[in-house]
Protein backbone atom coordinates (compact mmCIF):
# COMPACT_ATOMS: atom_id res chain seq x y z
CA UNK A 1 0.00 0.00 0.00
CA UNK A 2 2.85 2.32 0.90
CA UNK A 3 4.59 1.44 -2.35
CA UNK A 4 1.41 2.21 -4.31
CA UNK A 5 1.10 5.53 -2.50
CA UNK A 6 4.80 6.26 -3.24
CA UNK A 7 4.34 5.37 -6.92
CA UNK A 8 1.22 7.54 -7.10
CA UNK A 9 3.11 10.42 -5.50
CA UNK A 10 5.98 10.06 -7.94
CA UNK A 11 3.71 10.08 -11.01
CA UNK A 12 1.81 13.15 -9.76
CA UNK A 13 5.17 14.88 -9.22
CA UNK A 14 6.18 14.01 -12.79
CA UNK A 15 2.85 15.29 -14.07
CA UNK A 16 3.27 18.52 -12.11
CA UNK A 17 6.79 18.92 -13.49
CA UNK A 18 5.57 18.38 -17.05
CA UNK A 19 2.75 20.88 -16.56
CA UNK A 20 5.22 23.43 -15.21
CA UNK A 21 7.47 23.00 -18.23
CA UNK A 22 4.46 23.31 -20.52
CA UNK A 23 3.43 26.49 -18.67
CA UNK A 24 6.89 28.01 -19.15
CA UNK A 25 6.88 27.14 -22.84
CA UNK A 26 3.39 28.62 -23.14
CA UNK A 27 4.56 31.89 -21.57
CA UNK A 28 7.53 32.12 -23.93
CA UNK A 29 5.18 31.42 -26.85
CA UNK A 30 2.80 34.10 -25.51
CA UNK A 31 5.68 36.60 -25.49
CA UNK A 32 6.40 35.79 -29.15
CA UNK A 33 2.68 36.12 -29.80
CA UNK A 34 2.75 39.61 -28.30
CA UNK A 35 5.60 40.53 -30.65
CA UNK A 36 3.56 39.37 -33.62
CA UNK A 37 0.54 41.28 -32.32
CA UNK A 38 2.69 44.38 -32.03
CA UNK A 39 3.57 44.07 -35.71
CA UNK A 40 0.11 43.03 -36.90
CA UNK A 41 -2.09 45.56 -35.11
CA UNK A 42 -0.04 48.66 -34.37
CA UNK A 43 -3.05 50.82 -33.56
CA UNK A 44 -4.38 48.46 -30.90
CA UNK A 45 -0.96 48.27 -29.28
CA UNK A 46 -0.58 52.06 -29.39
CA UNK A 47 -3.98 52.53 -27.75
CA UNK A 48 -3.09 50.06 -25.01
CA UNK A 49 0.31 51.64 -24.52
CA UNK A 50 -0.94 55.19 -24.19
CA UNK A 51 -3.80 54.08 -21.92
CA UNK A 52 -1.25 52.48 -19.58
CA UNK A 53 0.87 55.65 -19.75
CA UNK A 54 -2.21 57.69 -18.75
CA UNK A 55 -2.82 55.46 -15.72
CA UNK A 56 0.78 55.62 -14.49
CA UNK A 57 1.29 59.34 -15.28
CA UNK A 58 0.39 60.68 -11.78
CA UNK A 59 2.88 58.31 -10.12
CA UNK A 60 5.58 59.11 -12.68
CA UNK A 61 5.03 62.82 -12.03
CA UNK A 62 5.51 62.29 -8.33
CA UNK A 63 8.64 60.18 -8.78
CA UNK A 64 10.23 62.74 -11.12
CA UNK A 65 10.14 65.41 -8.37
CA UNK A 66 13.24 64.33 -6.34
CA UNK A 67 15.58 64.53 -9.35
CA UNK A 68 14.01 67.84 -10.40
CA UNK A 69 14.52 69.37 -6.96
CA UNK A 70 18.13 68.14 -6.80
CA UNK A 71 18.92 69.62 -10.20
CA UNK A 72 17.31 72.97 -9.25
CA UNK A 73 19.37 73.17 -6.08
CA UNK A 74 22.58 72.41 -8.01
CA UNK A 75 21.67 74.96 -10.67
CA UNK A 76 20.98 77.61 -8.03
CA UNK A 77 24.36 76.96 -6.45
CA UNK A 78 26.09 77.25 -9.83
CA UNK A 79 24.24 80.45 -10.57
CA UNK A 80 25.13 81.99 -7.24
CA UNK A 81 28.79 81.34 -7.96
CA UNK A 82 28.76 82.89 -11.43
CA UNK A 83 26.08 85.54 -10.92
CA UNK A 84 28.28 88.61 -11.29
CA UNK A 85 29.75 87.47 -14.60
CA UNK A 86 26.36 86.43 -15.91
CA UNK A 87 24.93 89.81 -14.98
CA UNK A 88 27.44 91.65 -17.12
CA UNK A 89 26.89 89.31 -20.08
CA UNK A 90 23.11 89.67 -19.82
CA UNK A 91 23.29 93.47 -19.71
CA UNK A 92 25.35 93.52 -22.92
CA UNK A 93 22.94 91.10 -24.61
CA UNK A 94 19.97 93.18 -23.53
CA UNK A 95 21.37 96.27 -25.15
CA UNK A 96 21.98 94.40 -28.41
CA UNK A 97 18.46 92.94 -28.36
CA UNK A 98 16.91 96.35 -27.85
CA UNK A 99 18.64 97.55 -31.00
CA UNK A 100 17.55 94.45 -32.93
CA UNK A 101 13.99 94.99 -31.69
CA UNK A 102 13.86 98.38 -33.35
CA UNK A 103 15.05 96.94 -36.67
CA UNK A 104 12.62 94.01 -36.39
CA UNK A 105 9.69 96.35 -35.82
CA UNK A 106 10.59 98.28 -38.94
CA UNK A 107 10.93 95.09 -40.98
CA UNK A 108 7.57 93.86 -39.70
CA UNK A 109 5.85 97.00 -40.88
CA UNK A 110 7.48 96.73 -44.28
CA UNK A 111 6.45 93.05 -44.49
CA UNK A 112 2.82 93.90 -43.76
CA UNK A 113 2.75 96.56 -46.42
CA UNK A 114 4.31 94.24 -49.01
CA UNK A 115 1.94 91.37 -48.17
CA UNK A 116 -0.98 93.66 -48.54
CA UNK A 117 0.31 94.75 -51.93
CA UNK A 118 0.73 91.15 -53.16
CA UNK A 119 -2.57 89.89 -51.64
CA UNK A 120 -0.53 87.26 -49.74
CA UNK A 121 -2.50 84.46 -48.01
CA UNK A 122 -0.58 83.54 -44.83
CA UNK A 123 -0.19 80.03 -43.40
CA UNK A 124 -2.38 79.29 -40.37
CA UNK A 125 -0.82 80.48 -37.13
CA UNK A 126 1.01 77.82 -35.17
CA UNK A 127 -0.57 76.94 -31.81
CA UNK A 128 1.42 75.54 -28.95
CA UNK A 129 1.16 74.12 -25.45
CA UNK A 130 3.78 73.62 -22.77
CA UNK A 131 4.24 70.24 -21.14
CA UNK A 132 6.37 68.88 -18.32
CA UNK A 133 8.66 65.90 -18.93
CA UNK A 134 7.69 63.24 -16.36
CA UNK A 135 9.54 60.14 -17.55
CA UNK A 136 12.63 59.38 -19.55
CA UNK A 137 11.84 56.07 -21.22
CA UNK A 138 15.05 56.13 -23.25
CA UNK A 139 17.76 53.49 -23.12
CA UNK A 140 20.27 52.02 -25.56
CA UNK A 141 17.43 50.63 -27.75
CA UNK A 142 14.85 53.44 -27.80
CA UNK A 143 14.88 57.21 -27.27
CA UNK A 144 11.62 58.71 -26.09
CA UNK A 145 10.15 60.81 -23.31
CA UNK A 146 6.74 61.08 -21.66
CA UNK A 147 5.30 64.55 -21.20
CA UNK A 148 2.35 65.49 -19.02
CA UNK A 149 -0.01 67.65 -21.00
CA UNK A 150 -2.93 67.90 -18.56
CA UNK A 151 -6.52 67.00 -19.37
CA UNK A 152 -7.49 69.98 -21.52
CA UNK A 153 -4.96 69.92 -24.31
CA UNK A 154 -4.97 70.11 -28.09
CA UNK A 155 -1.88 68.01 -28.70
CA UNK A 156 -2.02 65.76 -31.77
CA UNK A 157 0.17 63.01 -33.14
CA UNK A 158 2.87 64.50 -35.35
CA UNK A 159 3.10 67.83 -33.50
CA UNK A 160 6.65 69.15 -33.33
CA UNK A 161 8.33 69.34 -29.91
CA UNK A 162 10.72 72.24 -29.36
CA UNK A 163 12.76 73.80 -26.62
CA UNK A 164 14.37 77.24 -26.61
CA UNK A 165 17.41 75.68 -28.28
CA UNK A 166 15.82 73.80 -31.17
CA UNK A 167 13.96 70.69 -32.26
CA UNK A 168 13.65 67.90 -29.69
CA UNK A 169 11.41 65.51 -31.61
CA UNK A 170 7.78 64.93 -32.44
CA UNK A 171 4.70 63.50 -30.77
CA UNK A 172 4.33 59.79 -31.56
CA UNK A 173 1.22 59.07 -29.49
CA UNK A 174 -1.30 61.04 -27.43
CA UNK A 175 -3.34 59.98 -24.41
CA UNK A 176 -5.82 61.65 -22.11
CA UNK A 177 -3.16 63.48 -20.10
CA UNK A 178 0.19 62.33 -21.47
CA UNK A 179 1.96 62.44 -24.79
CA UNK A 180 4.96 60.42 -25.94
CA UNK A 181 7.80 62.27 -27.64
CA UNK A 182 9.92 60.41 -30.18
CA UNK A 183 13.31 62.07 -30.06
CA UNK A 184 15.41 62.97 -33.10
CA UNK A 185 18.08 60.60 -31.73
CA UNK A 186 15.74 57.57 -31.82
CA UNK A 187 16.58 54.80 -34.28
CA UNK A 188 13.15 55.22 -35.91
CA UNK A 189 13.53 58.96 -36.43
CA UNK A 190 14.15 60.29 -39.96
CA UNK A 191 14.03 64.05 -40.58
CA UNK A 192 14.52 65.84 -43.93
CA UNK A 193 17.14 68.53 -43.26
CA UNK A 194 19.37 71.08 -44.96
CA UNK A 195 23.00 71.78 -44.16
CA UNK A 196 23.94 75.45 -44.16
CA UNK A 197 25.52 77.38 -45.75
CA UNK A 198 25.42 75.28 -48.94
CA UNK A 199 21.72 74.27 -48.39
CA UNK A 200 22.52 70.63 -49.14
CA UNK A 201 19.51 68.38 -48.64
CA UNK A 202 19.96 65.29 -46.49
CA UNK A 203 18.19 63.04 -43.98
CA UNK A 204 18.95 63.13 -40.26
CA UNK A 205 18.80 59.53 -39.05
CA UNK A 206 18.72 58.66 -35.36
CA UNK A 207 20.73 55.66 -34.13
CA UNK A 208 19.97 55.69 -30.38
CA UNK A 209 23.21 57.53 -29.61
CA UNK A 210 23.53 61.17 -28.57
CA UNK A 211 24.72 62.20 -32.05
CA UNK A 212 22.40 61.20 -34.92
CA UNK A 213 23.83 60.67 -38.39
CA UNK A 214 23.39 62.55 -41.62
CA UNK A 215 22.60 60.25 -44.56
CA UNK A 216 21.51 60.55 -48.21
CA UNK A 217 23.76 63.56 -48.74
CA UNK A 218 24.65 64.34 -52.39
CA UNK A 219 28.13 63.08 -53.31
CA UNK A 220 29.57 66.37 -54.48
CA UNK A 221 28.80 68.28 -51.28
CA UNK A 222 31.64 69.06 -48.90
CA UNK A 223 30.54 69.14 -45.26
CA UNK A 224 32.65 70.72 -42.52
CA UNK A 225 32.58 70.45 -38.76
CA UNK A 226 30.53 73.33 -37.38
CA UNK A 227 28.07 73.56 -40.30
CA UNK A 228 24.56 74.23 -39.12
CA UNK A 229 21.72 71.74 -39.73
CA UNK A 230 18.11 72.92 -39.99
CA UNK A 231 14.83 71.32 -41.07
CA UNK A 232 14.19 71.51 -44.82
CA UNK A 233 10.39 71.29 -44.73
CA UNK A 234 10.35 68.39 -47.22
CA UNK A 235 7.51 65.85 -46.78
CA UNK A 236 5.59 68.36 -44.66
CA UNK A 237 6.51 66.74 -41.34
CA UNK A 238 8.55 69.60 -39.92
CA UNK A 239 8.31 73.21 -41.14
CA UNK A 240 11.42 74.60 -42.80
CA UNK A 241 14.07 76.51 -40.88
CA UNK A 242 13.86 74.95 -37.41
CA UNK A 243 17.31 74.55 -35.84
CA UNK A 244 18.46 70.94 -35.32
CA UNK A 245 22.19 71.03 -34.52
CA UNK A 246 25.71 71.35 -35.86
CA UNK A 247 28.05 68.92 -37.60
CA UNK A 248 30.33 67.53 -34.89
CA UNK A 249 32.39 64.97 -36.83
CA UNK A 250 33.02 63.87 -40.41
CA UNK A 251 35.05 60.65 -40.49
CA UNK A 252 35.02 57.44 -42.56
CA UNK A 253 31.98 58.65 -44.49
CA UNK A 254 29.93 59.00 -41.29
CA UNK A 255 28.67 62.48 -40.49
CA UNK A 256 27.52 63.03 -36.91
CA UNK A 257 25.32 65.90 -35.75
CA UNK A 258 25.30 67.37 -32.25
CA UNK A 259 21.70 68.48 -31.49
CA UNK A 260 21.27 71.98 -30.09
CA UNK A 261 18.83 70.66 -27.51
CA UNK A 262 20.51 69.60 -24.29
CA UNK A 263 18.48 66.57 -23.30
CA UNK A 264 19.91 66.55 -19.79
CA UNK A 265 18.19 69.81 -18.81
CA UNK A 266 14.68 69.10 -20.00
CA UNK A 267 11.85 70.00 -17.68
CA UNK A 268 9.40 71.92 -19.81
CA UNK A 269 8.98 71.46 -23.56
CA UNK A 270 6.82 73.25 -26.12
CA UNK A 271 4.54 71.18 -28.34
CA UNK A 272 3.71 73.11 -31.49
CA UNK A 273 1.02 72.42 -34.06
CA UNK A 274 2.09 73.93 -37.37
CA UNK A 275 -0.97 72.53 -39.11
CA UNK A 276 1.17 70.26 -41.29
CA UNK A 277 -0.25 67.05 -42.67
CA UNK A 278 2.96 65.30 -43.66
CA UNK A 279 2.16 62.16 -41.61
CA UNK A 280 -0.66 59.82 -42.56
CA UNK A 281 -3.83 60.71 -40.62
CA UNK A 282 -4.32 58.37 -37.69
CA UNK A 283 -7.33 59.56 -35.65
CA UNK A 284 -7.88 56.13 -33.99
CA UNK A 285 -4.49 56.40 -32.29
CA UNK A 286 -5.68 59.24 -30.06
CA UNK A 287 -7.60 57.95 -27.05
CA UNK A 288 -11.01 59.59 -26.96
CA UNK A 289 -11.68 61.61 -23.86
Amino acid at each position, binding site marked *: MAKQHGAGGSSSFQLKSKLQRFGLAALVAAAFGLMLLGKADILLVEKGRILFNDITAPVLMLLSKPAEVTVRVMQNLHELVSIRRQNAVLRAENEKLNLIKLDTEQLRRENEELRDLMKYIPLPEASSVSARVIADTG*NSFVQSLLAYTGYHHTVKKGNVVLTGEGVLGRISSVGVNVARILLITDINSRIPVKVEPMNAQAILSGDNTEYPQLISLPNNVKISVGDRVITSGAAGVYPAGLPIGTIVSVADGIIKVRPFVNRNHLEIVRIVDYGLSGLLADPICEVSR
Partner: protein
Amino acid sequence: MRSFPVNSPVFTYLAEKLRFYSPKLLTLFILLFSLAPTYLPGYSAVRPNFMLIPVFYWAVYKPENFSVIAAFTFGLMQDLLEETPLGVNTLVFTVFYILAESQRRFLSNKPFSSVWVGFAVLSLIILFLNWLIIAINYGRFSPFGTAFVGYLILLAAYPVVVWPCARLYLYLLDKNDGDV
Protein backbone atom coordinates in the same frame (compact mmCIF):
# COMPACT_ATOMS: atom_id res chain seq x y z
CA MET B 1 -11.02 55.40 23.68
CA ARG B 2 -11.37 52.47 21.28
CA SER B 3 -8.05 50.78 20.44
CA PHE B 4 -7.11 49.92 16.85
CA PRO B 5 -8.27 46.34 16.19
CA VAL B 6 -4.86 44.96 15.09
CA ASN B 7 -5.89 41.42 15.96
CA SER B 8 -9.10 41.51 13.96
CA PRO B 9 -9.42 38.84 11.25
CA VAL B 10 -9.84 41.49 8.53
CA PHE B 11 -6.67 43.34 9.50
CA THR B 12 -4.72 40.09 9.79
CA TYR B 13 -5.96 38.98 6.40
CA LEU B 14 -5.05 42.31 4.78
CA ALA B 15 -1.62 42.31 6.40
CA GLU B 16 -0.96 38.77 5.13
CA LYS B 17 -2.02 39.72 1.61
CA LEU B 18 0.16 42.83 1.71
CA ARG B 19 3.15 40.74 2.82
CA PHE B 20 2.49 38.21 0.09
CA TYR B 21 2.33 40.89 -2.64
CA SER B 22 5.10 43.08 -1.22
CA PRO B 23 7.82 41.74 -3.58
CA LYS B 24 5.61 42.62 -6.53
CA LEU B 25 4.79 46.06 -5.11
CA LEU B 26 8.46 46.79 -4.51
CA THR B 27 9.27 45.67 -8.06
CA LEU B 28 6.54 47.97 -9.39
CA PHE B 29 8.05 50.87 -7.46
CA ILE B 30 11.50 50.08 -8.91
CA LEU B 31 10.01 49.96 -12.41
CA LEU B 32 8.36 53.39 -12.13
CA PHE B 33 11.25 55.00 -10.28
CA SER B 34 13.75 53.79 -12.89
CA LEU B 35 11.91 55.89 -15.49
CA ALA B 36 12.30 59.17 -13.59
CA PRO B 37 14.40 61.72 -15.49
CA THR B 38 17.89 61.95 -13.99
CA TYR B 39 19.27 64.97 -15.92
CA LEU B 40 22.70 63.28 -16.04
CA PRO B 41 24.65 64.03 -19.25
CA GLY B 42 24.66 61.07 -21.64
CA TYR B 43 22.74 58.81 -19.26
CA SER B 44 19.63 58.36 -21.40
CA ALA B 45 21.55 56.69 -24.22
CA VAL B 46 22.91 54.02 -21.86
CA ARG B 47 20.15 53.72 -19.25
CA PRO B 48 20.24 50.10 -18.10
CA ASN B 49 17.30 47.80 -17.52
CA PHE B 50 17.18 47.98 -13.71
CA MET B 51 14.18 45.65 -13.61
CA LEU B 52 16.49 42.69 -14.26
CA ILE B 53 17.77 43.01 -10.69
CA PRO B 54 14.50 42.45 -8.76
CA VAL B 55 13.38 39.78 -11.26
CA PHE B 56 16.66 37.92 -10.66
CA TYR B 57 16.54 38.37 -6.90
CA TRP B 58 12.99 37.12 -6.42
CA ALA B 59 13.54 34.21 -8.81
CA VAL B 60 16.48 33.06 -6.72
CA TYR B 61 15.21 33.82 -3.20
CA LYS B 62 11.42 33.98 -3.22
CA PRO B 63 9.88 32.39 -6.31
CA GLU B 64 6.78 31.50 -4.27
CA ASN B 65 5.99 35.25 -3.98
CA PHE B 66 7.14 36.22 -7.46
CA SER B 67 6.33 33.68 -10.15
CA VAL B 68 7.24 33.57 -13.82
CA ILE B 69 3.80 35.05 -14.54
CA ALA B 70 4.78 38.11 -12.50
CA ALA B 71 7.99 38.39 -14.55
CA PHE B 72 5.91 38.14 -17.74
CA THR B 73 3.53 40.83 -16.50
CA PHE B 74 6.30 43.23 -15.50
CA GLY B 75 7.95 42.72 -18.87
CA LEU B 76 4.67 43.63 -20.54
CA MET B 77 4.33 46.71 -18.33
CA GLN B 78 7.84 47.83 -19.23
CA ASP B 79 7.03 47.35 -22.94
CA LEU B 80 3.96 49.56 -22.52
CA LEU B 81 5.82 52.27 -20.62
CA GLU B 82 8.79 52.40 -22.98
CA GLU B 83 8.66 52.64 -26.72
CA THR B 84 10.23 49.18 -27.17
CA PRO B 85 8.29 46.85 -29.50
CA LEU B 86 5.59 44.91 -27.65
CA GLY B 87 6.77 41.53 -26.43
CA VAL B 88 10.50 42.29 -26.26
CA ASN B 89 10.84 42.93 -22.53
CA THR B 90 8.05 40.40 -21.93
CA LEU B 91 10.15 37.68 -23.53
CA VAL B 92 13.41 38.91 -22.00
CA PHE B 93 12.03 38.97 -18.44
CA THR B 94 10.36 35.56 -18.85
CA VAL B 95 13.52 33.91 -20.16
CA PHE B 96 15.65 35.67 -17.53
CA TYR B 97 13.36 34.46 -14.75
CA ILE B 98 13.50 30.88 -16.06
CA LEU B 99 17.31 31.04 -16.24
CA ALA B 100 17.62 32.58 -12.76
CA GLU B 101 15.25 30.11 -11.16
CA SER B 102 17.09 27.20 -12.76
CA GLN B 103 20.23 28.38 -10.92
CA ARG B 104 18.42 28.84 -7.63
CA ARG B 105 19.81 25.74 -5.95
CA PHE B 106 23.37 26.87 -6.74
CA LEU B 107 22.98 30.54 -5.86
CA SER B 108 20.58 30.75 -2.93
CA ASN B 109 23.14 29.53 -0.37
CA LYS B 110 26.09 31.42 -1.78
CA PRO B 111 27.59 34.69 -0.45
CA PHE B 112 26.62 38.03 -1.96
CA SER B 113 29.67 38.29 -4.26
CA SER B 114 28.96 34.89 -5.84
CA VAL B 115 25.35 35.83 -6.45
CA TRP B 116 26.53 39.12 -7.98
CA VAL B 117 28.79 37.19 -10.38
CA GLY B 118 25.88 34.87 -11.20
CA PHE B 119 23.74 37.90 -11.99
CA ALA B 120 26.52 39.34 -14.16
CA VAL B 121 26.74 36.16 -16.26
CA LEU B 122 22.99 35.72 -16.72
CA SER B 123 22.34 39.40 -17.45
CA LEU B 124 25.06 39.42 -20.11
CA ILE B 125 23.31 36.54 -21.88
CA ILE B 126 20.01 38.38 -21.60
CA LEU B 127 21.58 41.62 -22.84
CA PHE B 128 22.69 39.87 -26.00
CA LEU B 129 19.24 38.30 -26.45
CA ASN B 130 17.61 41.71 -25.96
CA TRP B 131 19.92 43.37 -28.48
CA LEU B 132 19.27 40.63 -31.04
CA ILE B 133 15.48 40.73 -30.68
CA ILE B 134 15.45 44.53 -31.01
CA ALA B 135 17.61 44.25 -34.15
CA ILE B 136 15.19 41.71 -35.66
CA ASN B 137 12.24 43.97 -34.82
CA TYR B 138 13.75 47.15 -36.25
CA GLY B 139 15.56 45.50 -39.14
CA ARG B 140 18.84 47.16 -38.15
CA PHE B 141 21.36 46.90 -35.34
CA SER B 142 21.57 49.34 -32.46
CA PRO B 143 25.14 50.05 -31.35
CA PHE B 144 26.12 47.23 -28.98
CA GLY B 145 28.66 49.51 -27.30
CA THR B 146 26.00 51.69 -25.65
CA ALA B 147 24.10 48.59 -24.54
CA PHE B 148 27.30 47.19 -23.01
CA VAL B 149 27.95 50.43 -21.13
CA GLY B 150 24.40 50.14 -19.79
CA TYR B 151 25.23 46.59 -18.70
CA LEU B 152 28.29 47.81 -16.76
CA ILE B 153 26.17 50.48 -15.04
CA LEU B 154 23.63 47.77 -14.20
CA LEU B 155 26.34 45.65 -12.55
CA ALA B 156 27.63 48.62 -10.57
CA ALA B 157 24.09 49.49 -9.44
CA TYR B 158 23.27 45.90 -8.40
CA PRO B 159 24.10 46.35 -4.67
CA VAL B 160 22.06 49.55 -4.48
CA VAL B 161 18.94 48.19 -6.20
CA VAL B 162 19.10 44.80 -4.47
CA TRP B 163 19.38 46.34 -0.99
CA PRO B 164 15.64 47.12 -0.54
CA CYS B 165 14.79 43.69 -1.99
CA ALA B 166 17.12 42.03 0.54
CA ARG B 167 15.64 44.07 3.43
CA LEU B 168 12.15 43.04 2.39
CA TYR B 169 13.23 39.40 2.05
CA LEU B 170 14.68 39.40 5.60
CA TYR B 171 11.50 41.03 6.92
CA LEU B 172 9.34 38.38 5.25
CA LEU B 173 11.64 35.66 6.59
CA ASP B 174 11.31 37.03 10.14
CA LYS B 175 7.56 37.27 9.80
CA ASN B 176 7.30 33.69 8.55
CA ASP B 177 9.50 32.44 11.39
CA GLY B 178 7.43 34.46 13.85
CA ASP B 179 4.20 32.97 12.54
CA VAL B 180 5.66 29.46 12.81
